[in-house]
């Protein structure tokens, strides 16, 4: 793997994310890169389901929000250190995803997609009614928790670097899965599930594993993201906008490609930044995401990477 150029391209991207805002303590750039890192994390992990196996997960936000909740709750109610809480969030959400996945992944195609919508509703209703998690008003944590990380200003940097690490891990995870035998099985499921099963791919187990694997890093990212804001509530944690945007990013960059998703995330982040500051479009963010998605689905189903591959076929060897 170390001899593949793409491995080093990912390393370069991560280094750029880590170094650029550090130059001159550029907090503004850091905050916009936080969002880009969250997008890349969510979209890369969604891509494991959507791009490789062809199963649409409309509720990828559940992993993010649930991870946030578990992490914040452990820090707030049990005074766990951040690292342990993050790990617990990742492992816990992954485990839940495995259990749920074994159930709902027996549903094929569209039925699976429908049940992921239901999971969002279910988990949100749980968070709104579960008293230890503060019900619909959520959990606030005091800024005191930033003390072990060296005060709030330094803590924000620590969180940022951790988030970049999670983003990098997401890119490497999708890359590693894609080049592995496991990934080959997933891609086979995406092409034709019956044929894959006949050829000996253990489809139910592979799908559940992919679903669970795609839950781990978003959960940690959610923990970091909400820890950074020191506040979590159901409407933010399970905001469907974010899972929608993850789908748009996957399709924009090119489903099933690792580089495309990162590229899509960056482009979408830029577009969104422009839309939010423009007075005409500020209220129409979802609408524009919808128009973008519709155009991609109708006319460019293979996304940006598909376009680049068809123009420059050699690129296929370098960018996965």
């Amino acid at each position, binding site marked *: 793997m170390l001899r593949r150029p793409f491995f080093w391209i990912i390393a370069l991207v991560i280094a750029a994310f880590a170094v650029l805002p550090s130059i001159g303590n550029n907090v503004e750039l850091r905050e916009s890169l936080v969002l880009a890192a969250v997008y890349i994390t969510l979209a890369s992990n969604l891509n494991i389901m*959507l791009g490789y196996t*062809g199963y649409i997960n409309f509720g990828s936000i559940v992993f993010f929000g649930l991870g946030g909740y578990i992490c914040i709750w452990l820090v707030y109610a049990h005074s766990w250190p951040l690292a342990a809480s993050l790990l617990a969030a990742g492992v816990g959400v992954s485990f839940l995803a495995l259990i749920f996945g074994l159930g709902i992944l027996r549903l094929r195609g569209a039925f699976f997609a429908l049940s992921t919508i239901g999971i969002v509703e279910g988990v949100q209703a749980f968070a709104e009614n579960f008293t230890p998690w503060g019900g619909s008003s959520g959990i606030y944590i005091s800024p005191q928790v930033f003390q072990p990380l060296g005060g709030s200003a330094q803590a924000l940097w620590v969180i940022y670097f951790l988030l970049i690490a999670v983003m990098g891990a997401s890119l490497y995870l999708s890359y590693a899965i894609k080049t592995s035998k496991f990934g080959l099985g997933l891609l086979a499921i995406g092409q034709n599930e019956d044929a894959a099963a006949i050829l000996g791919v253990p489809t139910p187990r592979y799908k559940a594993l992919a679903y669970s694997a795609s839950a781990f890093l978003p959960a940690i990212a959610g923990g970091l993201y909400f820890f950074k804001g020191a506040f979590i509530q159901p409407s933010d944690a399970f905001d469907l906008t974010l899972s929608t945007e993850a789908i748009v990013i996957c399709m924009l960059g090119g489903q099933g490609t690792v580089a495309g998703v990162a590229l899509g995330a960056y482009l979408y982040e830029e577009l969104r930044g422009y839309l939010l500051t423009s007075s005409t479009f500020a209220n129409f963010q979802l609408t524009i995401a919808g128009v973008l998605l*519709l155009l991609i689905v109708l006319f460019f189903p293979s996304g940006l990477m598909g376009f680049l591959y068809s123009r420059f076929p050699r690129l296929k060897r370098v960018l996965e």
Partner: protein
Amino acid sequence: MLGILASIIDGVLVGLVYGLAAMGLTLIWGVMDVINLTHGAMIVAGMMALYLLANALGISPYLTLPPVLIGGFFVGVALYWIAIHRMVGRPPLMSLLSTFSVNLILIGVGTAVWGTALFNVEVSLPGITVGRYTFPGAHILAAVLAAVIAALLYVFLHYTRTGKAMRAVANNREAAELVGIPTTRVLAISVGVGVALAGVSGMLIGTLFPFTILSGDGYQLKGFIVTVLGGFGNPVGALLGGVALGLLEGMVTPFVPVSWTLVIEFALFVLVLIAFPGGIFASRRGAL
């Protein structure tokens, strides 16, 4: 005990309206294997049409039914040409995404124009009182209207040329094309009818409960649950599924907080899909 019975009867009345919403969904699914994720937005469109027509023009809420039905049909035909035509016969992933994006556009415009305020349409109808319990007149009338429209749909599907063509296309599109049925036009009409049903059910729900622009998602999910209970692609089953869901809601509401209802229904959705992949009231695939 009588209280629970009353709650169950009321649940069945509302369930008929859910059944109507699900009929639109299952019709589109049955004819072209496309899951229409704009259904929720179309239900809300029906609600907003009810609110705007009834409040701005001051006409009776029930007189908005014909314009919603006709308008819904044309919106549906437009939806077919914009988002579905190119997706028919392609992997289900693509039609899910294309209808999902239209849903985003509609909800996005809706929230930008009306915000997420709560709308309420006043309906004053005398209810029927049995002992200490009163069944609201609006619930009874909505259930009756839903049943009438469902019956009309049945007649349309079984006794008109277009309806028969729709059933033929649902059964086997290529064979239908071979015997000279203009399949593309039939598909467009099917989406039109499906969306018209969504709009009318939204309009009827609007006379029962207050709503916001975002209410559609919940009703869409209920629509899927009903569809799954009744069997995909089976409109009559959908009506029965609606009644079953209403029955369940009626039994559950007295004991459980409202926000859990949808979760229980959703758990049922997954369980039914795993246990009866064809739906409980399913007769045979492509029965329509």
